[in-house]
């Protein structure tokens, strides 16, 4: 008739992807969530959007944990991805102290966050051959920053979820962006090490 459940909340990693309708924000969240499931994590993916199919604000959240997830929406965001200036402005406040912020450097010129990673996802996607792959390029950066989900799983889910003709281009955009994000993190780490040494 009923069940007695465990008494503890598990630690969780919260990702919020925000942008405008039509950028594939929801799909990016779903692919990320399926990848987490493939990595045998607990995961909850939620979305928030206005009545518009195109334009308007679109948010997709993915909460990943090693245990059961009680509250499915993000409470303190570990990683924010913003693909429009408005999305960045609206969602920055939800990022927890020490959290990561990733933005498209062309679409979001203004990022009042000290350690934001600015990468040209739109440009990377265009160069890969499909400007709509901006969402998968952004996931490349997520894979670099987020310890909770593996790049291999994201790539595997992309192959399953995207139209066959578009898989390769999207995976290319994903890999390019992931490489760029890796480089950025390495530079940042080196800079931080240098600063600490100087101090």
């Amino acid at each position, binding site marked *: 008739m009923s069940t007695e459940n465990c008494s503890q909340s598990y630690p969780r990693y919260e990702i919020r992807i925000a942008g405008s309708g039509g950028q594939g924000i929801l799909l990016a969240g779903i692919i990320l969530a399926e990848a987490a499931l493939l990595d045998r994590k607990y995961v*909850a993916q939620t979305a928030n959007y206005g009545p518009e199919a195109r334009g308007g604000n679109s948010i997709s959240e993915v909460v990943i944990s090693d245990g059961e997830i*009680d509250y*499915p*929406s993000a409470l303190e965001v570990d990683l924010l991805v913003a693909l429009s200036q408005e999305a960045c402005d609206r969602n920055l406040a939800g990022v927890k102290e020490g959290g990561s912020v990733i933005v498209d450097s062309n679409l979001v010129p203004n990022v009042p966050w000290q350690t934001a990673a600015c990468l040209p996802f739109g440009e990377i996607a265009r160069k890969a051959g499909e400007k709509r792959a901006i969402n998968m390029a952004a996931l490349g950066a997520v894979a670099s920053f987020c310890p909770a989900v593996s790049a291999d799983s994201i790539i595997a889910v992309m192959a399953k979820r995207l139209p066959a003709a578009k898989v390769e281009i999207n995976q290319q955009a994903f890999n390019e962006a992931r490489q760029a994000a890796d480089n950025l993190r390495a530079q940042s780490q080196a800079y931080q090490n240098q600063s600490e040494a100087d101090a």
Partner: protein
Amino acid sequence: METVLLEGNEACARGALAAGCRFYAGYPITPSTEIMEFMSRELPKLGGMFIQMEDEMGSMGAVIGASLAGVKAMTATSGPGFSLMQEHIGFASMAEVPCVIALVMRGGPSTGLPTQPSQADVMQAAWGTHGDHPVIVLSASSAYETFDLTIKAFNLAERYRTPVIMMTDAIVAHTREAVTLPDADVEIEDRPQPTGTPEEFMAYADPGNGVPPMPPFGDGYRYHVTGLCHDVRGFPTTRSDEVDFLLRRLLSKITRDSDRLQWFDRWHENSETMVIAHGCVARAALRAVRQVRDKGLDVGLIKPKILWPFMSTTISNVLDNCRRVLVPEMNFGQISREVERVNQGRCEIVTLNKVDGTAITPPEIVQKLEEMQL
């Protein structure tokens, strides 16, 4: 067993198929539409029937027709569409036609907040259609629970020959989570069938448990089905003894089993303070309870999975063993009203009501629980 990522709406549709649903009639409405879209894609592959009707009244009419023809049938809707369905939910109650209505709650009244969550249809689910009538309403708080409870909804509809409302909200409906799909066939109940000959068949006579057998149209048991008060053969009547017998049987076939119809999850049920929450709010409440317990507060949680008939026995037991109860709800207090009715002044009942179209969050419940301890 396969574990897949499903949103609540898809889990509902898959649960329905697992339960043997082979007919869907519906009308698009946010935030329930994905159930319909899934059915339009999958039912034709299974030899089932799908039809998009001209409105929600038509959807319920077609669902009842299909069920009378012997096929398990459902529809799905949200606030405004649910209002339109009330006429035929009443018909299904009166004529005792098994069917399932998935209700994905959004903000109301009227067109309200189409894309945002609410729990303000709890009372409507029970009392939306006119007249005294039986109804069963289940409430799910996650995708995996939606899958399981939708199967249960079909089984209860068949067992009691009554409409069952499978209730979720915009958050549960659109949250994607892992759902483990069963390998083997799930346990399925079917409506009782007559054992005698067509000549001696009495379509609405009480066989003892209040639920008359229900042969499908076309199998030789020619009988009359009506929304009018009817006698044991199904023919309209205004005779007070026949009307009284009918209405009492309709209600009691479910209420006599109400002690069995108690499904809930519980955490620390013997705590000094108990939270009673269902649907998406129960998720926030669980996290809040865990957080305040970490701070040393003695708080537990009851999450009802059935809202109607209200599980008075369970709630009464909870009220016997605690001092305070918090009922957080995304409405002005619908479940809390029932809790107060059962309480009869035993405990202090505190409400937390949010109606702004956003979810109740764990910190809001934590704050309330801390205030209650002062």
